[in-house]
């Protein structure tokens, strides 16, 4: 079939398409569009590193400049995935070092990155610009030294929440004097002190520096030195925010802040001392993002600070903010879109702060743009949830964690089914939901019926039977990620909805009632799924078929079974035999 639309024109048009969704649609039009598109795709996102192999990606997209990839399941953040599970990036780096010499960006989340990988990156990609390692592990500061020493075009080095073996702070001094292109540096997760003079000189010679997130070891007294050399900063993460109470330190700090007219985001604040908070006053009104979740300051200092930030769009804070602070927030910060309230004493038996469901209700009432919530508290009612749902039908992400598992509505002692039901019914654009408290199968019925845009669902200590899981799997049309722990869900719903799993990225079930037999059956019948049993008790074969597995991780893949599994992970596949006893 001939068509008169020249390839070059199509390629030019495709150049403007950045969304993967659009590009994927384009590739389905016809073979020649597929070909044209694949040669000009520059950015690839792999949501699960085991869903595909490096070879397959490279074969299809030969000219990639940016890779973004995720590894371990989300519940790895909470220690539910044992050590050594996998998600090694090295095979990818190795393959790309040959195939993509012009690679510019690597962004990884929950992957194991070794110093070897970092060194290979630093030596293989001449135009390397962006390295983001989010919640990664496996490397040391030596690996960072290689990056610093060799990546002369580096723009971004962001180590957010990674676990780095901190051998010394000397890595920073490996940036050569000739290196001036730094735009963003996030070293907040590192423990060791870096050479302050090296840091100062680095900041001074990089005029494009926009984001600087320091680690705790950078003392507050020295912060002004950095701010004065980088008044153009847009995002700043302080080091420890405490010092001896001295007026010269205070005025120095306040003055340095006053020079930073572009500052939009602040974070850090370890060990924050209330006396030094007003030093930031000059920047408060311009702040759109404030992360105080490592600051143990309490009301009223906390409330006072937050109330001054009238432009705030995102606030992360500890529950020291209490209901009163949240009420003040709802009055002062009308642009608020995202609120995260973390627990200051999650393991304490009793509440230590006056934070209840009322705080969240206030914010839902007062902040019309509120769309993303993460809230840890100790009590909740259906009435509060219903009110929140009514106030904020524009909610997109709603994560509620009631600290004690399975607590009911504290006023009526009923399950929180109706409350969460109201949320999914009212918030039609809801994409992410995490639930807690006492929940029966009924809430899953509501979810399956109403949560049609829901993409990610996290469930813990909830439900009564397989019916609950069945409602979710059969009803949630947009579901991509489902993670479940400690729920009485077994084989029936899983097997009845096997095909659904191929339409999702992944399913995690731990401490549920899924039997080994069912896992084998699933793995046998669904060749395009990897069905992985994680069991630290030893081979599942050594127990009866009906015995539930500890943990189950199921994900779709075109890459075949994993070959890098540790001893406690078993893949259920066509080779598994089902024995009937």
């Amino acid at each position, binding site marked *: 079939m001939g068509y008169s639309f020249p390839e070059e024109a199509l390629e030019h048009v495709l150049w403007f398409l950045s*969304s*993967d*969704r659009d590009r*994927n*649609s384009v590739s*389905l039009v016809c073979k020649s569009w597929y070909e044209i598109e694949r040669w000009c795709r520059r950015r690839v996102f792999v949501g699960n590193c085991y869903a595909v192999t490096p070879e397959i990606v490279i074969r299809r997209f030969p000219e990639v400049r940016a890779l973004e990839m995720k590894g371990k399941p989300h*519940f790895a*953040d*909470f*220690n539910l995935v044992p050590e050594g599970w996998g998600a090694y990036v090295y095979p990818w780096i190795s393959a790309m070092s040959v195939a993509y010499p012009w690679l510019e960006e690597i962004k990884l*989340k929950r992957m194991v990155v070794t110093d070897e990988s970092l060194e290979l990156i630093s030596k293989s990609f001449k135009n390397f610009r962006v390295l983001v390692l989010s919640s990664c592990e496996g490397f040391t500061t030596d690996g960072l030294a290689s990056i610093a020493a060799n990546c002369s075009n580096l723009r971004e080095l962001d180590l957010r*929440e990674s676990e780095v073996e901190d051998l010394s702070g000397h890595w920073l001094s490996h940036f050569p004097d000739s290196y001036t292109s730094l735009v963003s540096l996030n070293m907040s997760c590192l*423990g*060791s002190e870096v050479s302050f003079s090296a840091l100062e000189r680095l900041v001074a010679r990089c005029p494009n520096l926009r984001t600087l997130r320091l680690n*705790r*070891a950078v003392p507050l007294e020295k912060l002004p030195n950095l701010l004065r050399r980088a008044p153009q900063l847009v995002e700043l993460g302080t080091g420890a925010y405490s010092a001896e109470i001295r007026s010269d330190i205070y005025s120095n700090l306040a003055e340095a802040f006053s020079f930073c007219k572009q500052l939009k985001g602040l974070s850090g604040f*370890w*060990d924050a001392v*209330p006396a030094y908070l007003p030093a930031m006053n000059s920047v408060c009104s311009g702040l759109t993002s404030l992360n105080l*979740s490592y600051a*143990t300051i309490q009301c*009223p200092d906390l409330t006072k600070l937050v109330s001054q930030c009238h432009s705030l769009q995102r606030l992360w804070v500890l529950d020291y903010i209490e209901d009163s602070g949240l009420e003040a927030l709802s009055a002062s910060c009308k642009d608020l879109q995202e609120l995260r309230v*973390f*627990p200051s*004493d*999650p*393991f304490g038996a*009793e*509440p230590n*702060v*006056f934070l209840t469901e009322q705080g969240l209700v206030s914010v839902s009432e007062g902040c019309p743009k509120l769309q993303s919530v993460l809230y840890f508290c100790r009590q909740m009612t259906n009435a509060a949830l219903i009110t929140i749902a009514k106030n904020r039908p524009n909610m997109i992400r709603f994560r509620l*964690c009631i600290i004690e*598992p399975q607590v009911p509505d504290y006023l009526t002692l009923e399950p929180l089914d109706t409350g969460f039901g109201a949320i999914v019914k009212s918030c039609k654009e809801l994409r992410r939901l995490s639930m807690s408290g006492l929940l029966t199968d009924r809430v899953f019925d509501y979810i399956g019926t109403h949560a049609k*845009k829901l*993409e*990610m669902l*996290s469930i*813990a200590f909830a439900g*009564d*039977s*397989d*019916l609950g899981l*069945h409602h979710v799997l059969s009803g949630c049309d*947009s579901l*991509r990620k489902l993670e479940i722990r400690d729920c*009485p869900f*077994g084989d*029936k*719903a899983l*097997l*009845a909805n*096997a*095909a659904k799993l191929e*339409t999702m990225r992944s399913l995690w079930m731990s*401490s*549920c*009632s899924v039997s080994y037999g069912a896992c084998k059956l699933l793995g046998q*019948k669904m060749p395009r799924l990897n069905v992985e049993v994680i069991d630290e008790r030893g081979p599942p074969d050594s127990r009866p078929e009906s015995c539930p597995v*500890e943990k189950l991780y199921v994900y779709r893949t075109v890459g075949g079974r994993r070959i890098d599994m540790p001893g406690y992970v078993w893949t259920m596949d066509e080779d598994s035999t089902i024995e*009937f006893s």
Partner: protein
Amino acid sequence: MELELGLSLPNHNPIMMKGLLDLNCSSDNEMELKRNKFHKNNYKKQTFLGDHDDDDDDEHGNVEVESNKSLSLFLWSGQPNDEEDDSPREKWRKLHLNDREIDEENHEIVGWPPINSWRRELLHHHHQGGGWMVVNHRRGERLRNSMYVKVKMEGVAIGRKIDLRLYNSYHTLTNALIEMFAKYNGIGRKKVDYTILYQDKEGDWMLAGDVPWEAFIESVQRMEILRNEK
């Protein structure tokens, strides 16, 4: 476990087939079959509408288009099975009674509440009551970063935590404490007699003010305020 395996061929109709046995015929003979009413599973075209990958803040477009497929490994009525003695929840409870991973030291459930290791570490230090943290590896100094102790006032349900680094004498500490509790408990700031006690390293309750401030700071684990209203 009684299963009826149903594998339908990919077609455009939802499953409406009764007792369609699958390719796995041999094993079916060995299994106990139970005729259940089946549940209609209708998988529409699956598209990922999200331009967002919502793990945390990331937003990323990721779309797959799946063809219509009806595939169920288990035709199930969707009704809870009446014939079983234990409800699934009971069964699950019994199964996991001993399995539940409890962190021996802390009597906590593993991974609950869901906060990541960074926050856990921060809170761990914070709650040590006089916690010290090594900050400077090279110089090997132990720098005091926080000195939080719990303070309870008699008759007040919720205790507070204060950072003792902020004070340099009993006088400043006492004023701060009274201010703090007055604010939250609507107690008038009249000159009510307060007795401040603290628990020392040995676990004994002592009267604050008896020992020099430095010794107090070294030893205090937690505090309690008694009101002596005359």
